[in-house]
């Protein structure tokens, strides 16, 4: 069968709404787009554990400590599940799990802008749980009907756990919102710090060429802007309901256009942070990741040696 015909048949499968599996034939472009997306997703889950992990030792009560610890553990677990999916996609390209894991240490894979930022107070930990996870949940729920079967299945499990993250984050925020004047100020400060990052999180407003191809292949079915609008729909009223002010004087819902009007984030600034790992915490967190990966290599190697020895006997 010629490549052209294979590609045509592949697209017919996509249009019929069939799921593609790891062992199926797929166009290189489909594989590359998926791999890039899932690799970045996996690495973002793992790097996303770092800003919150900083608050595990400093959590204000034992219950909060257990809660945030469970959440951090989930995020690393999500990274593990997604790495498995990425690994199978990468194998035919001669890339291994080690490559996928160490790419972040060598600055060869990007992770979400929000995880490059500082978590200054306990309220930041709350805002991450509430709004960063909230934004990520909108992204992930929209991906549930992706055309790639292994990704769809893993996302189902991830989303089930995210619903705990959602409640966990909201609970921290609600406690602060009902607290003292100082706690409410701390919360407002955190929101001020995170808002622009959150708007940037969904990516550029225009549909890039790669994004269009992902839509064609039904890897994604929604555009960045559609997801950002969903986020604003769901969260603006809730943020306002607890007496917080969103730090964007331009923000309003346009009844005629049926969409939110907002100030654009500093696209250039955040792109640089993500591209060059030049955010306030990028290098520190990558160094921690490098330390964890490199310093524990001997353990992994020892386990391999013990397996090989057993195999010989």
């Amino acid at each position, binding site marked *: 069968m010629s490549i052209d015909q294979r590609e045509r048949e592949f697209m017919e499968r996509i249009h019929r709404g069939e799921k593609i*599996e790891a*062992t*199926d034939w797929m166009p290189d472009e489909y594989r590359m787009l998926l791999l890039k997306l899932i690799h970045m997703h996996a690495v973002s889950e793992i790097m996303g554990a770092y800003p919150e992990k900083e608050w595990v030792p400093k959590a204000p009560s034992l219950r909060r400590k257990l809660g945030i610890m*469970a959440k951090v*553990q*989930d995020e690393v*677990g999500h990274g*593990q*599940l997604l790495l*498995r999916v990425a*690994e199978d996609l990468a194998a035919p390209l001669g890339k*291994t*799990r*080690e*490559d996928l894991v*160490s790419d972040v240490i060598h600055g060869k894979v990007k992770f979400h802008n929000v995880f490059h930022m500082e978590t200054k107070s306990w309220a930041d930990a709350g805002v991450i749980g509430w709004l960063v996870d909230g934004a990520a949940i909108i992204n992930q729920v929209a991906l549930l009907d992706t055309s790639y079967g292994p990704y769809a*299945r*893993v996302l189902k*499990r991830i989303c089930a*756990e995210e619903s*705990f993250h959602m409640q966990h984050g909201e609970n921290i925020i609600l406690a602060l919102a009902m607290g003292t004047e100082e706690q409410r100020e701390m919360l407002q400060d955190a929101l001020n710090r995170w808002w622009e990052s959150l708007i940037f999180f969904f990516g550029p407003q225009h549909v890039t060429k790669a994004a269009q191809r992902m839509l064609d292949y039904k890897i994604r079915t929604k555009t960045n802007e559609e997801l950002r609008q969903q986020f604003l729909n769901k969260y603006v009223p809730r943020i306002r309901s607890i007496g917080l002010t969103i730090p964007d004087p331009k923000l309003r819902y346009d009844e005629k256009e049926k969409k939110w009007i907002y100030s654009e984030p500093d696209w250039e600034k955040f792109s640089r942070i993500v591209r060059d790992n030049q955010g306030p915490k990028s290098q520190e967190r990558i160094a921690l990741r490098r330390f964890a990966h490199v310093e524990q*290599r001997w353990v*992994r*190697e020892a*386990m*391999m040696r*013990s*397996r*090989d020895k*057993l195999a010989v006997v």
Partner: protein
Amino acid sequence: MERSEGQGLFDVYEVFVQKSQGEFHTHVGSVVASSPDHALYMARENFLRREPGVNIWVVPREHVHATPYEETDFFAREMDRKYREVSGYSENGRLWRMFREKALSIEEIAKALEVQELQKRKSRKEK
């Protein structure tokens, strides 16, 4: 050095979890591990952080034999299979009515047995 780990690496194990002894083991995903023991721990950490489970199987991926997705003929339903299904016998309801009776279902029998059991327990308590 950087590469050495990239070559051999851990093996892939498919993971099956049994939620309770009344259920079958169900495939939930896969992990990488250096040994079956290691895979069992990884499986528990990855898939049972919240959900209950009573048993886990891990199976080296290459030991799983599967039908290829492209071979849809394998699953072809070449003819009407109504004769194998409950829905193929829906006329029973109408036929029973001719004898002044109703169609019976498994669910009704199960329900009746359950009620009987409850009554038995109740009368035992009263004694």
